[in-house]
């Protein structure tokens, strides 16, 4: 039997527990109207999925998800929520039925498709026996770096990562073009600095003026 679930009862319990928490968080997000609670639950969802990544051996992804999903995206969502509104309007009953039907049908189609997928943890599946396994084999000879994820990210797929970095840069630029570089806080900071500098040396602005007069 291939399944990770069957292999280790502890891992299986961890798996079931985390998936249950994820389900609870997702359903709560769907039912809630307070945007603050929704944003916080989205952070919890990310954090729990990070823990789940550790259970399925994806430590690098877990790290990223914990830092990005639970830290960064919660901060950005909170900032956006503060700038817009605190509560969402309740959905009308009519607008709930259609999406529900679409989602159930899409889910049924996807579940039907999983029947053809290889079982969980199958080492001979096309995913696991292809280029991923080759990376594991040749990595030590090529780069001598034990963590296989780093050379695949930086060396074998360096172009890919260059593109991703550029995308992140472009997204930062787009946000700055849409919202500015934080001018309001900048203005507050400059005003405060002016006040403190005036208090410290009140005659400072006049000194250059007297110098220039004779010249």
């Amino acid at each position, binding site marked *: *039997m*291939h399944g*990770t*679930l*069957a*292999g280790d009862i502890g891992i299986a319990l961890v*798996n079931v527990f985390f*998936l249950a928490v*994820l*389900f609870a968080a*997702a*359903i709560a997000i*769907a039912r809630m109207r307070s*945007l603050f609670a929704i944003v916080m639950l*989205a952070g919890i*969802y*990310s954090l729990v*999925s990070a823990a*789940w*990544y550790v259970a*399925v*051996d*994806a430590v*690098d992804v877990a790290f*990223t*998800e914990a830092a990005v*999903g639970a830290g960064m*995206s919660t901060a*950005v*969502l909170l900032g*956006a*929520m503060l700038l*817009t509104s605190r509560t*969402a*309007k309740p959905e009308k009953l009519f607008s709930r039925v259609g*999406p529900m039907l*679409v*989602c159930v049908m*899409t889910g049924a189609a996807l579940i039907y498709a*999983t029947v053809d*997928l290889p*079982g*969980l*943890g*199958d*080492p001979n599946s096309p995913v*696991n026996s292809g280029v*991923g396994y*080759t*990376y*594991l084999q040749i990595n*030590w*000879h090529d780069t001598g770096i*034990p*963590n296989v*994820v780093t050379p695949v990210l930086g060396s074998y797929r360096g172009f890919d990562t260059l593109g*991703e970095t550029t995308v*992140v840069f472009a*997204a930062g630029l787009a946000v700055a073009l849409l*919202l500015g570089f934080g001018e309001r806080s900048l203005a507050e900071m400059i005003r405060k600095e002016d006040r403190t500098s005036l208090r410290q040396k009140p005659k400072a602005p006049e000194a250059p003026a007297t110098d220039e007069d004779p010249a």
Partner: protein
Amino acid sequence: MLEFLLERANYWAVIGLMMIGLYITFASQNLIKRMVGLSLFQTTICLFYVTLGVVSGGTAPILFGADAPDHHEAPPSPEEVHGALDAVLAAGGEAHGRYADLVNTYSNPLPHVLMLTAIVVGVATLSVGLALVVRIREAYGTIESDEIREIDLKTALAQHAEAEKAANEAAA
């Protein structure tokens, strides 16, 4: 049958989560809630990719033990050399070129790499979407999509009426 179900239960759970994310994106009128649903959907896609890369009995894809022999230094001391390392060297682990025979089992590193970058790009694009939502709020005063549609409709009707009036005046 039970084995078949157990092997696919994880996929089904992930698909269920994915559909909840899709439902939130679809059903809610609030744009911020929609963005949250979208990011939920994206996180769950990452879960699915990583699930596909699991190898039963494997560990995280960090080479250790006999798979990472220290070939820059002097050969390891005798007590360090286990039977496994001997087997690798006897089979020509280094000698027969780039392709080493792995002693330990590792999970597939490729989905990890793809999803690692996807998560970072996901938060960057999420913030672009949120910036657009903030601008929409500043322009319309609301972030409920049905209200925005109503305002758009009213504006368009007013523009039409104005254009018609101008045309009538020009004809008269």
